[in-house]
């Protein structure tokens, strides 16, 4: 039985996992890099162990140090979160060998699904539809060109070991083939240490729809319905929702059954996601499986009413699933947006820095999974995601209104964030009507541009606020005590000074 969980991650997901552990009476261990000493997961955990310098390769990716930390603190299980070591079969194997429960699937499932080409073959064997393309990894450019000419342009080049848009290139014109392949390979090499790529037919105007699945160690697998993730910028999801606005009950049932079949094909246990590419006629193809918790898992939690992290822990404990497929249903509508520390009006340039002020959205139907706080410095070494805002309402229309209301109340200063950009997405007619695919962002470029909605009065008020702040500071300086007083009453003086915020 799991008594103490080390969370081999940082940021919001580390805190989110620890929350469920705490509800289950399970102790938690944080691991952290030098720059993360003040990070929320260190503060939230029962125990905390420093595992190295800031770069992930020297800390959060150091399997040996993480396992050492688990032993040191007596943690008998490790939850990998998402990213970092979450889809690393070797790490899962090392845990197994050390007698530590890896809260995730078997190394075999990670390996099989982690390699895109093996995964394709396995899916074909299991009768799950896949996108036309290569079944072998491409290691040289010559073969790549031959294959592409055979499949026909446009094609997508993808890293075999990849995920999250890294090492991915779309090729539409013959003259771009070489640069795209070498770009994808070097990116894949840098990100995953493996430059093998594969090639797939590119499906134009595709929807990205994924199915959450849960499997136990007794061979039971259920799906928890779909998530619509087509709002993407450079292959990174920006908005996710469930149910998908284009889904029908019939297709949902079919896709769900295929998702379960896909998981069963690798004897999957734990939480996982089957990603499908779907065309406008609801033809769907297996894209890949993520053998871990997804960033966007909370929308499923809200609509299905299941705590996925708790389920992961129950499964890791060897318990059978507490529900059957027919026990699960979707209720209402949930949407998640990801808040990034980036400047949407300046080519989404990352914006690390110190959080000067934060006010989080609250109230009915709003869940906010974050980890930053006032005075926290968002480090430049890791993913710039600040938090996830998840809303639920009875209907999609109401959920969009609620999300706008929550974004209205969500204030962060000190770093630039994607909040204004997310608000603009919610006002694009194609989004409101639920008629969008993965080209949504590029097709709605004009709608998503920054608009100056500020009237003359609004600008005047902005100027006046700064002006009043400035003259108030000046005033305070003039009532400053003289030098003589300074010696005796440094306390009062300090008080006055701390109000100045100069």
């Amino acid at each position, binding site marked *: 039985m799991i008594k103490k969980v080390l969370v081999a991650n940082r940021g919001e997901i580390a805190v989110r996992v620890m929350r469920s552990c705490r509800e289950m009476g399970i102790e938690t261990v944080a691991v952290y890099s030098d720059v993360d000493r003040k990070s929320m997961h260190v503060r939230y955990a029962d125990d905390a162990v420093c595992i190295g310098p800031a770069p992930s390769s020297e800390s959060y990716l150091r399997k040996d140090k993480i396992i050492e930390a688990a032993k040191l603190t007596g943690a008998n299980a490790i939850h990998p979160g998402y990213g970092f070591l979450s889809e690393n079969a070797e790490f899962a194997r090392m845990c197994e060998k050390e007698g530590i429960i890896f809260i995730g699937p078997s190394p075999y499932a990670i390996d099989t699904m982690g390699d895109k080409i093996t995964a394709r073959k396995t899916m074909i064997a299991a009768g799950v539809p896949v996108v036309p393309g290569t079944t072998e990894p491409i290691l040289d450019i010559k073969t790549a060109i031959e294959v592409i000419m055979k499949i026909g342009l446009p094609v997508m080049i993808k890293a075999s070991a990849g995920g999250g848009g890294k090492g991915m290139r779309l090729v539409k014109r013959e003259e771009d083939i070489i640069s795209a392949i070498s770009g994808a390979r070097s990116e894949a090499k840098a990100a995953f240490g493996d430059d093998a790529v594969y090639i797939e037919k590119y499906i134009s105007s595709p929807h990205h729809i994924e199915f959450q699945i849960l499997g136990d160690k007794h061979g039971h697998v259920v799906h928890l319905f779909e998530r619509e993730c087509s709002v993407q910028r450079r292959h990174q999801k920006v908005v996710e929702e469930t149910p998908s606005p284009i889904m029908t009950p019939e297709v949902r049932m079919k896709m769900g059954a295929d998702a379960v079949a896909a998981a069963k094909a690798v004897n999957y246990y734990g939480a996982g996601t089957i990603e499908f590419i779907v065309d406008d006629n609801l033809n769907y193809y297996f894209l890949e499986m993520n053998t871990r918790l997804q960033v966007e898992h909370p929308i499923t939690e809200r609509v299905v009413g299941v705590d996925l992290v708790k389920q992961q822990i129950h499964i890791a404990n060897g318990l059978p699933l507490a529900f059957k497929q027919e026990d699960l249903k979707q209720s209402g509508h949930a949407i998640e947006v990801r808040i990034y520390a980036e400047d949407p009006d300046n080519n989404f340039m990352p914006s690390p820095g110190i959080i000067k002020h934060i006010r989080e959205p609250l109230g009915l139907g709003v869940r906010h999974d974050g980890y930053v706080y006032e005075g926290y410095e968002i480090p430049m070494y890791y*993913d710039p995601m600040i938090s996830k805002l998840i809303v639920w309402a009875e209907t999609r229309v109401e959920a969009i209104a609620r999300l706008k209301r929550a974004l209205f109340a969500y204030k962060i200063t000190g770093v630039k964030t994607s909040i204004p950009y997310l608000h603009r997405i919610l006002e694009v007619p194609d989004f409101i009507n639920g008629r969008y695919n993965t080209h949504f962002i590029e097709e709605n470029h004009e709608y998503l541009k920054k608009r100056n909605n500020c009237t003359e009065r*609004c*600008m005047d008020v*902005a100027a006046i606020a700064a002006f*009043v*702040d400035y003259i108030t500071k000046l005033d305070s300086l003039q009532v400053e005590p003289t030098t003589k007083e300074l010696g005796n009453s440094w306390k009062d003086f300090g008080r006055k000074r701390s109000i100045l915020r100069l």
Partner: protein
Amino acid sequence: MSYEVKINNRHSTIELLSREGTKFNILIDKNYYELDIAEVEKGVYSILHENRSFNVELVEGKNSKSYIVNTLYEAFDVEIIDAETKYLMNRRKDDGEDQNVISSPMPGKVVKILFKEGDFVKAGETVVVVSAMKMESEYKVKQDRKIKRILVKEGDTVKGDQPMVVIE
């Protein structure tokens, strides 16, 4: 006493006519405002004008006279221009050197420097690659240029706005 204020690219004259507690009478250019202004949190102001409730957040910019001002969904650069600022602005105009510096707008790590001092670079070529938050950004030149000085080396950590390369 009146001040000059720059809001993005708009120059305005602003004058405090009177103040009593949180009640301010202010003239900005030709607009007269009666306002109730309260600092509710550190740098966060609640402003009432003709019963309308505005919320404004200030973040101090480069110095105590420059601000980033956030209104509902907009952000403005506001600068209070006093004698000292005017002097500095004039001096900067004469100098003009800062146009020829490649700086990283955000903190990061220098991944690659593709040229050395004295090299000629073509328009559009990348000079420096900086990595921050799992993303690599390439810094290019817009016109044909010559590398005058390189102030950083590969592996260096740079701060926001730190000059990296001086070009001619």
